[in-house]
């Protein structure tokens, strides 16, 4: 070690240049790795988390209009908790797109509902105003906007802004809000968002407390795509739907009868009539009379007898919804009476799916009807929802969305997505950057190693006689090799350390530069208009170890040649 250290000083200039090369290479590696880590951090923990979470569950409902709404939030949250490990939190999506109307100008806005205990307050720095003011009782509810978005519509702190949007049923809304806070603008994507009290927005969207537009799950392992997808698949399997059925009461005059009401898919599945005809044998009326009816019902003969109903009778259909104290009631017309059967419970009654689109799907029953023993007939009945197939990537996800847009369907469809499917383009971009970073690393390694090899070969050549002299006085081959290797390893150690310090200085300098990419998509990769670096101990130590080991190996192989020199040949060597 002492000899190696002294030799380093002896050939100071050459070693200094090599050391600088290694230090600069190390600095570039650390800066590049920190930049890509920063991008990953932004993507996974800032952009994706707020856009879709790491796993997202949505329920696409189409009754009289299409909207995303999960009607039974507690049930879905329980399914998530039972099947998804490592949950950091479950975000409830209560948001909508709309138009902001300021002073003479309008703009696009994405209204996002914020809960009182949200991380939003810790993670968001306001330029002015108090974020908690969105919960302060006032003439108009509070809204927090991005500064540029507010400026675009000529509003400032304490001004009022009108936001027009539609409820989940398509009802027009144009409430006024008071601007209680302004956030420094980040980039063109995030500027569109504006934040309000989630309970206020829920009411405006006509969502009940147990309803939500979607559930975004934030996990502790976003970068582990395999695990995330596996977990999503498990959750998908757990969301297998049951039959859509209601434990209801039918009444005719003073007569009452309990009924398990199911919906026949007579409109959406043409083969239903054939399937149902195998199990439902009509004594009067027909399936044809029921098809397309929004107020028709077919009764079991025993139930019809107990109610005193015949075809054409008007019965009152009544059930309690799960999340309301007001019963759902509708007058129905008996369209048919079927023969009793062993496989057909006395309480079973059948409506056309049209009835359920405006009752069941908007008001989940407190008591769902049980599954039917008749498996064949069950195939003809409406399910709580259809599970959409899992998509492999964004392309497949988009095709699925387009297909849903083109098809004629009603009811509900549930989709389980991970960010690897909903935003695979962004993730592919991030992976591409990582690949570029790896290639840069390899190129740098190559350059560094070339430098090490070249310097060592020059040094060995110049010190050949010295090697001969040392060997002549008793130094062994291994010792000769060790001297040269130690020189390089010590140099690499010191240079890498210097490189890390240089890297931190560079990162501090680069991140202090303000880069205004307001209307540029790449602005999403900046934080507060500054480059974002996220150095990790793992990558720094990893690069450190790799460079030192590589230097060791190269120097070992090169020094072997020096060690193998014959003493006499070495002593006779002249430059």
């Amino acid at each position, binding site marked *: 070690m002492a000899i190696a250290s002294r030799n380093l000083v002896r050939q100071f200039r050459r070693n200094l240049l090599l050391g600088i090369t290694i230090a600069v290479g190390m600095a570039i590696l650390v800066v590049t790795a920190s930049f890509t880590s920063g991008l990953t951090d932004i993507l996974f923990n800032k952009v994706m988390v707020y856009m879709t979470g790491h796993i997202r569950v949505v329920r696409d409902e*189409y*009754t*009289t*209009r*299409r909207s995303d709404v999960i009607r039974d939030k507690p049930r879905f949250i329980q399914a998530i908790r039972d099947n998804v490990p490592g949950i950091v939190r479950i975000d409830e999506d209560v948001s909508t797109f709309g*138009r902001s*109307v300021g002073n*003479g*100008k*309008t703009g696009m806005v994405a209204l996002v509902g914020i809960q009182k205990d949200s991380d939003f307050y810790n993670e968001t720095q306001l330029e002015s105003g108090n974020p908690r003011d969105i919960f302060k009782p006032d003439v108009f509810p509070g809204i927090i906007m991005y500064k540029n978005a507010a400026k675009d519509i000529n509003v400032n702190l304490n001004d009022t802004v*009108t936001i*027009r949007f*539609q*409820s989940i*049923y*398509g*009802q*027009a*809304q*144009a*409430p*006024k809000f008071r601007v209680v806070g302004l956030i420094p603008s980040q980039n063109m994507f995030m500027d569109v968002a504006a934040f309000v009290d989630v309970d206020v927005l829920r009411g*405006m969207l*006509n969502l009940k407390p147990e309803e939500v537009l979607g559930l975004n799950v934030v996990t502790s392992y976003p970068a582990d795509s395999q695990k995330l997808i596996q977990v999503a698949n498990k959750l998908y399997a757990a969301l297998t739907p049951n039959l859509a059925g209601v434990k209801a009461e039918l009444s005719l005059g003073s007569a009452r009868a309990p009924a398990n009401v199911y919906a026949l898919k007579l409109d959406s599945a043409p083969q239903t009539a054939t399937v149902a005809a195998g199990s439902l044998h009509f004594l009067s009326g027909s399936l044809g009379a029921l098809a397309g009816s929004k107020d028709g019902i077919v009764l079991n003969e025993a139930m019809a007898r107990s109610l005193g109903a015949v075809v054409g009778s008007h019965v009152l259909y009544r059930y309690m919804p799960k999340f309301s104290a007001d019963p759902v009631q509708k007058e129905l017309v008996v369209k048919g009476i079927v023969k009793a059967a062993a496989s057909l419970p006395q309480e079973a009654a059948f409506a056309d799916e049209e009835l359920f689109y405006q009752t069941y799907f*908007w008001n989940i029953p407190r008591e769902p009807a049980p599954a039917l023993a008749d498996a064949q007939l069950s195939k003809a009945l409406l399910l709580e929802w259809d599970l959409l197939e899992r998509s492999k990537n964004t392309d497949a996800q988009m095709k699925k969305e387009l297909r849903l*847009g*083109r*098809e*004629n369907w*009603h009811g509900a469809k549930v989709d389980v997505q991970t960010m690897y499917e909903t935003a695979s383009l962004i993730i592919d971009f991030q992976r591409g950057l990582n690949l570029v970073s790896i290639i840069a690393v390899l190129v740098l390694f190559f350059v560094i190693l070339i430098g090490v090899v070249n310097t060592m070969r020059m040094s060995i050549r110049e010190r050949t006689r010295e090697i001969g002299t040392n060997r002549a006085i008793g130094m062994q081959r291994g010792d000769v090799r060790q001297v040269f290797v130690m020189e390089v390893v010590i140099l690499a150690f010191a240079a890498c350390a210097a490189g890390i310090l240089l890297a931190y200085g560079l990162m501090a300098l680069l991140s202090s530069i303000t880069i205004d990419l307001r209307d540029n998509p790449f602005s999403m990769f900046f934080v507060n208009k500054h480059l974002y670096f996220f150095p990790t101990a793992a990558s720094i130590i990893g690069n450190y170890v790799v460079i030192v080991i590589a230097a060791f190996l190269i120097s070992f192989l090169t020094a072997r040649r020096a060690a193998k020199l014959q003493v006499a040949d070495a002593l006779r060597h002249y430059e």
Partner: protein
Amino acid sequence: MYHLRRTSAAKTAGLVFVLLLAAGGLWASPSVQQIIDFIDSTYELRSDMTARAKIITKDPEQGTKVIESVLYRRDKDDAFLIVLASPETERGNGYLRVGDNMWLYKRATRTFTHIGRDEKIGGSNATAGDMESRKFRELYKPSTDASGKELISEATLGGAKIPVYRFEVVAQVNDVKYPKLVMWVTRDKFLELKRESYSLSGTLMETDLFGDYKEIEGRFVPLQQWFTDEVEKGKISKLQITGISFSKVDDYKFDKSYLESLSK
């Protein structure tokens, strides 16, 4: 959007009203429910229809936009087809409704997309839902005050002081765009002259005016309609209807292939 009256039915119904009121010895205002029922019974189209429509939309930020279209309606199943004729960017696009299905056809991509009621027609304020003929009485019921009395009063409208009834209705279903309406109808024929549409939270969203009523083949049609956006001030749309005919429309026009053929 299109308000039509069958003269003979309107006259008969109006006469019945007058006779009933005279027989009762009272010259009281009709109830809101009576007016709603009357609108439904006389508004309901009982034949096919063809019309040309021109919508001029003025937007302070986007300037003036003119959309021209042809509308076909088939009575037997309430199907409709709207084919956009201008501007050039929208020409050939169409909206087709048959049964419960509504589609948007894009000429550029030659694709049909299923749409909902709130899809805007060619970027105007008109929506696909406006084309539906759901019965007014299924959608709305009379507003009442605290004592249960319907909110209806006699008033006059405009500089000409046209005698009208002013009344309020509220939605009785969730899926209507405007949960509350205030309407002004003429006292003689119950022709709607003005409508104020309110949001779920009670904000005035739009004021509509209906004028230039003409009797065409036994029906009263407002040939000009104005829609004023009360939220985005300065935004106004004007609808002009021409070339109305109630003759039978060929069935082939309500098929997707017809829309596609127009693109060739």
